[in-house]
C-alpha cells in the first residue's frame, strides 16, 4: 500500500515538474496566462521544475528497488511531459491550477 502512495506521489511530482518546466518558456506561459503579459520569473520556474524532477526520483526510489525505480521514473517523466503538452494544446486553463500564485508574481 505504501508503495502505491509513493508511486502516486512520484507521478504527481513528475506532472508538476513538467508543468513548471513548460511554463518557463515564454510561448507556453502565454498560452496559460494570456493576460499576464511577459513571463515573470523564468529561473525560479525552472529551478522548481528541476527540483520536483529530483523529488519524483526520490519517491520512485522509496517505492521500488533502484533498478526498477529508474525505469518507472523515466517512463513517468515521458507520460508527464506528454500530458502537459496535451493540456497546453487542449485545456491550458488546467495548468493555472497546478501553477501556484508564487510564480505569477514578478520577481
Amino acid at each position, binding site marked *: 500500500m505504501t508503495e502505491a502512495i509513493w*508511486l502516486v506521489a512520484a507521478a504527481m511530482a513528475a506532472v508538476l515538474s*513538467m508543468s513548471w*518546466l*513548460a511554463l518557463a*518558456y515564454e*510561448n*507556453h506561459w502565454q498560452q496559460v496566462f494570456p493576460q499576464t503579459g511577459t513571463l515573470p520569473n523564468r529561473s525560479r520556474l525552472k529551478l522548481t521544475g528541476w527540483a520536483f524532477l529530483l523529488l519524483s526520483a526520490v519517491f520512485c526510489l522509496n517505492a*521500488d*528497488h533502484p*533498478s*526498477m525505480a529508474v*525505469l*518507472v521514473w*523515466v*517512463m*513517468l*517523466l*515521458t*507520460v508527464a*511531459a*506528454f500530458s*502537459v*503538452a*496535451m493540456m*497546453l*494544446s*487542449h485545456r491550458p486553463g488546467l495548468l493555472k491550477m497546478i501553477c501556484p500564485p508564487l510564480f505569477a508574481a514578478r520577481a
Partner: protein
Amino acid sequence: MLNSLRMSMGWVHTWMGLVLGFVLMICFFFGALSVFDREIDRWAIPDTRFEPQPMPSFDKVLKPVFEQLQPDPVDMAATERRVVGSLPDPETLKLESLFAYNTHRDPVLLIGGEFAIPNEPIDPADDHQHVHGRATVNPATGELLNDDALKIGSDWFYPMHFSLNLNWMMLGYWIVGLAALVMLAGLVSGVIIHRKIFREFFTFRPWKNLFRSSLDLHNMTGVVALPFHFFFAFTALVIFASNIYLPVTHTTLKPLHEHHEMLEAARTGLPHEPSGVAAPLASVDAMVAEAKRRWAERDMAGDVGFLTINHLGDENAYVSIYRAGSDRVALVGEGIHFDASTGEVIREEPPRSVVSSIDEFLTGLHLQHFEHWMLRWLYVFGGLLGAICIATGFVLFVEKRKARHARNGSQGSRIVDALAVTTVTGMVLAAVGMLVANRLLPADLAGKGQWEQTAFWSVWGLAFLHAALRSSPVAKARHNPAWREQSLLVGLMSLSAVGLNWVTTGDHLIKTVFTDTYWAVAGVDLSLIVTALVAFYAAAKLRAPVAAQQKEQAVSRNKQVNAYD
C-alpha cells in the same frame, strides 16, 4: 544537393524511416500488446480463466505429465531431413532433458523437453541431435491443454513483435533487427535535424495545418519518449545479438566455445555429458524446498520460475532450479543445482559479475518478468507513443509531397498513403479481427488456431485492398477517405469483440470488474472499449477534411455546370 549535415541526416531520416517505418509500426504496436500477452491469452482461451499459480509439485503433478509429453510432429519432420535414415516411432523416443517455466502472471504452465534420437546427422558438424516437445499444463489438475487453442497473446502477437511471424530462414528476425538498427539511426538523425529540442518539447498545435500539427506530434512523441525509444531499440538488438545476429560462438568461435563449455562443466561440477549408466530420480520437491530455504536465507522471494533437468535418467543427471524474477528487473536467477539421483546440492550460483548484471538488466527491462503493473502500463504508453511517432511520420511524408506529385502526375504519395492506412488502422483491424474470429469460431473446431491466423492475415489483406482502392484522391492532393472508414470499422469491431466475449463466455464487465473480479479479461475488454472510443473520435475528426473535400468538389462541379449555362 546534400551539402549540410542536417540535410543529409534529413535524407536518411526520411527514406530509411519510410521504408522501415512500416516494420517499426508493427514492432511498436504488437510490442505494446505483448506487455499484456498472458492476459490476452486468457481472453482468447476462456478455459484458462483462473488465477495465476505457482510452480506445482514436480513429484505429484509434473512427473506424470512429462511421461505423456510427445515429440512435436513439425520438429520431427524438420529433424528427419537432417539425419541419415528415418526416425523411430515418436512413442519410443526417450526424453533426455526437460524444463518447466512459469511467471507470476501465468495460470498455466509451459513445459517442454528434448527427446534423444539414435540417427547419425547428415552433416557431421550438426550437433543438434534431438527433437523438441512442448505442452501447456493446467497446474491445478495436471491436465494437458488442447494445442489447437492458439495463445493469441504470447504465441501470435508477441512473436509478431520480434519476428513478424515470418519464420522462413528467420527472415522476420533479420528484418526486425535491421529496423531496430535503423531506428537508432533515425533517433540520432532526428535529433540532429530537429534543433530546438527543448523549446518544442511540449509543443503540439492541433489548430495549425495538417503538416505542421503532424510535425509537432512527430517531434513531441519522438522526443518525450526518447529514452524509451532508444533503450527498447538497443536492448532488442542486445537480446538477439549473441544467438541470431552475431552468432560467433556457434560459427567462427565454435571450437573455443565448446572447449569453454567443457571447462565450465569441470569448474561447476555440472556434468557436460551423460555417463551412460542409468540412475533413478530423487524427490524434486525436496530439492525445491531446499532451494527455497537457501533463497529465504538470503532474504529473497522464493517462487520457482524455471526448473530444468539435464541428462534425465542418467547417473550424471542434474536438476537446476531458478528463482522467478518478479521482484526485480533481471529475469530468472539465483540458480541452485542438485544431483538428480541423490538430491544433494552440487552448486549454488555466485552473485553475478558487473558485466553479467548489466546484460541481465538490459534484457530484463525489455522482457519484463517483473511484477509491477504500473510500469507495464507505462511501457504500453511508451509503445503507443512510438506508434504515433511513426504514423505521423507517414502523414508528414505524404503531406509534404502530395501537391507536387499531383502536379507531376506521380502516384508516389498515393502508394505511401495506402500503405500507411494499411499499417496504422489496417493493423489494428487485423488484431481486433483476430479476437472477433476467436470468439466466433467454435472452441472445439479442429485447427482453430490456424483459422485465427488466416482471419488475421485476411483482415489485414482486405484492409490493404480497401486502402489502395480508396486512395485515388491522394494522387489529386486530396485526403484518403479510407482513414476514416477504417477507424469507424476499428471502433465497431472492438465493441463487437467485447460483446462477443460476453455472449460466448458470460464474462461481462460488471462481472469481471465487480462481482467476480478477473482483471486479465476485464483489462482486455476495457482496452477494447478505449480503442473503440479513440477510433470513433478519430473518425469524427477525420470527417471534417473529407466533408470539406466533398463540398469543394460539389462547388467546382457547380461552377462547371454554371460555365455551360
